[in-house]
């Protein structure tokens, strides 16, 4: 009954949005009314809730239950492209990443050293995949305005993966991850600077700042560490503010 009610509400919302949406186009389309955008989002969320409810109550996929995230992601991708909705695309990207994360954790029977390693690898792969999807969107002119959603999500996942390696204990290979963070961070900074992309620039600065704090924590302790953290923070602020002004001035 509940599943049917949720499903009916979701379908009603999607039909409402469909009737008010412009025809499909690979370029950006103009929404006729704000209500249609919100109703579409509501419909997508209700649909996701319905899938989750059905899976939880009836166990349709059994032990492969994490695949329901993939199903939700696929439906969201279709909706995002059909209705030209970046909000729904964000949901699709999140559902896809959740599928990988939950699948890995379930496969290893819960959190642990091996699970963290696999999780990290998946985060890095997902991040790279999303960034590639962003480039492909622009390169092949298939919803090029979706590129920012893909690249931002990709960079966040990619740097999260590297940082999780760098944040490991002192006996691990954390230093190698720090080196990787330095290289990846410098590359993203350079590209973001050249392309005048402040959001990507800020993500890289934040990641490098966290990496610098981790490295400092290995060398300094107590009060001296806090002073060093203050210095790193001020340095990051100076870089961010100066970069913004230069990027704005050169536009």
């Amino acid at each position: 009954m509940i599943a049917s009610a949720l499903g009916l509400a979701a379908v009603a919302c999607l039909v409402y949005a469909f009737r008010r949406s412009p025809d499909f186009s690979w370029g950006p389309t103009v929404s006729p009314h704000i209500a249609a955008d919100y109703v579409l989002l509501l419909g997508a969320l209700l649909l996701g809730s319905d899938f989750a409810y059905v899976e939880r109550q009836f166990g349709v996929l059994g032990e492969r239950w994490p695949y329901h995230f993939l199903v939700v992601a696929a439906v969201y991708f279709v909706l995002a492209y059909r209705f030209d909705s970046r909000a729904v695309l964000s949901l699709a990207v999140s559902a896809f990443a959740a599928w990988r994360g939950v699948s890995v954790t379930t496969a290893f029977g819960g959190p642990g050293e091996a699970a963290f390693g696999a999780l990290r690898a998946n985060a890095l792969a997902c991040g790279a995949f999303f960034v590639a999807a962003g480039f492909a969107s622009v390169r092949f002119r298939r919803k090029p305005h979706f590129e920012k959603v893909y690249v931002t999500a990709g960079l966040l996942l990619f740097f999260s993966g590297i940082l999780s390696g760098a944040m490991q204990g002192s006996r691990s290979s954390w230093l190698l991850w720090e080196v990787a963070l330095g290289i990846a961070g410098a590359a993203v900074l350079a590209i973001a600077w050249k392309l005048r992309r402040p959001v990507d620039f800020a993500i890289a600065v934040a990641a490098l700042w966290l990496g610098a704090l981790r490295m400092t924590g290995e060398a300094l302790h107590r009060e001296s560490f806090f002073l060093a953290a203050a210095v790193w923070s001020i340095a990051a602020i100076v870089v961010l503010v100066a970069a913004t002004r230069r990027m704005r001035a050169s536009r």
Partner: protein
Amino acid sequence: MKKAWVEAERAAEVRDAARDWKQSDAIDAATLAAIEAEFPARRVELAKAWKVLIFVLVSVATNGIQVGVFGFQPRGSGTYFTFAAILVAATEVLRGSRLAGTGSDAATSFWAVNYLTLAFAVLLEAGKTAGAITATIAVVAVAWAAACWRWGFGIYGAFAAIAGYLFLARFPFGRLAWGFVGAALCVMSVAWTGRRRWTSSRLRALTGVFVVSALALYGAINLYFYDHHAIEALSDGWRSRGPWPVRPDARLASAIATAVVPVVFLAWGLRARRRLVLDTGAILAAFSILTLEYYFRFGSLEITLFGVALIGLALWLNRRLTRAPGGELHGFTASPLLSAESETLSPAAALAAAAALPASPHRPDDADFSAGGGQYGGGGATGTF
């Protein structure tokens, strides 16, 4: 607030509003350029995500310096007073600089108030006596209110109001005070939001005070809060007074008020065309339904059907408003009001723009806008464009 800060804030509000109008195609690129030329950026303009990042960075830097210089366990309250004074000075400098509004001044002011609170708590030995706790809460309320008034961070108005209600709750008449003060501040804050000479940051502070006061008023009359003595539990030495008496007549009055107060807010919002009041009424109505659910326990089916009914009501209302002549019904419209970000005209931007433009009782002959000049002022600031 200093005159120059008010002018900079107004210029930023007008620039933001103009960009929203451009994004909504209400004005063209030339008009946007003209407005931006007349209101040049006096501050570094950053996206919200950057402001949050800079707030975090400055917070880490601030606390890092505090621990690095003064150590983990400074002796006495003097250290905290000194550090709070340094942060107050830093905020004053930042508010007057191009870095105002980047998140850096918000962070220094936020930690200034927190370290001042900590200093008073240490000085009064707040952990030892109930009176010291009450005095510290009073200091917190005054500090947030002063910070809000001086530096113009709207959210600090809400913080001050929260601390103020916690202070009132310390006394035996706490529930009564929440009811009366809450109702009075609700009415006053809504009335004051119509003042054009107030800066938009202070109007935002009034919004925060209104929401907190509405919640305080509702907390004073809500049946669940009455039955569970939620306000009395915050008072000084309430456990030593023995069992709290529950009077049947007061309980009945509380039950009726739980149902009536949200309706009053909704009716007020509809009648006054104030979305803030309407939204607050909707939130209070949701709390009343939760209260009802606590006492009568609905099934999941009823809750689902209720949610579906609300969705249906929203769609029906949207349909009626969209199909009404001119897209308007009794002063309500479903049309987006020129803001690309929120799809509604931000009240702060509207008021800033209203304050920036000269009063125009008659429709001008030429309906097309051109940036020909004018005057703006209010909140101690004047200027021309």
